[in-house]
């Protein structure tokens, strides 16, 4: 499968997915770590893609949504942003709401 299709699949098939350096348990970058922590604090399951383990995705993700940096967080197929936006939304309580709605919506539809 083409790399853009693989990215698209990860984005569309998961209600919440983070493309990050490392994993939520073993993050390899401070920004990825903080964003993953905010998602974990929402208390719902989410998917992750370790871009350091997939050079093709590492190279091509920036042009997928025209966003130059990592991590990238997608909810319901849409780019929410990177670390700073995710944290700011978490501090305002918006992230928890979005994540919960996306995960519950997925279950209801599933």
């Amino acid at each position, binding site marked *: 499968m083409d790399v853009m299709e693989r990215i698209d699949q990860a984005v569309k098939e998961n209600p919440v997915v983070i493309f990050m350096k490392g994993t939520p348990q073993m993050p390899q970058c401070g920004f990825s770590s903080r964003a993953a922590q905010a998602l974990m604090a929402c208390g719902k399951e989410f998917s992750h893609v370790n871009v350091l383990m997939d050079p093709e995705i590492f190279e091509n993700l920036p042009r997928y949504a025209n*966003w130059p*940096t990592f991590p990238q967080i997608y909810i319901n197929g849409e780019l929410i942003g990177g670390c*700073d*936006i995710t944290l700011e939304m978490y501090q305002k309580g918006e992230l928890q709401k979005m994540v919960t709605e996306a995960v519950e919506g997925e279950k209801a539809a599933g």
Partner: protein
Amino acid sequence: MTVQQDIETKLQDKLRPDHLEVINESSNHNVPPGSESHFKVIIASDAFDGKLLVARHRLVNEILADELKHKIHALALHTYSPAEWAELNGGAPASPPCLGGGK
């Protein structure tokens, strides 16, 4: 021109910010001393009025596209409209309005 000056000049020119801080945070990271790899930008501008965070960051990312591609490894971004900035404690408080008392 240093990368820091380059970032400052571009953001100043394109966004005419009310407030702009470009902070070199490279020394917090695993890079040689004197590096210009990790930056934090705190910026308040009219250009962000009524825009979602994701759109604000896109705007800055586009202005700094070349730097992000070739020079900067990480960019922390804190974007505010002038009104949001004024509400923040860290922001410079607005000067009091004239109350008309004397010339």
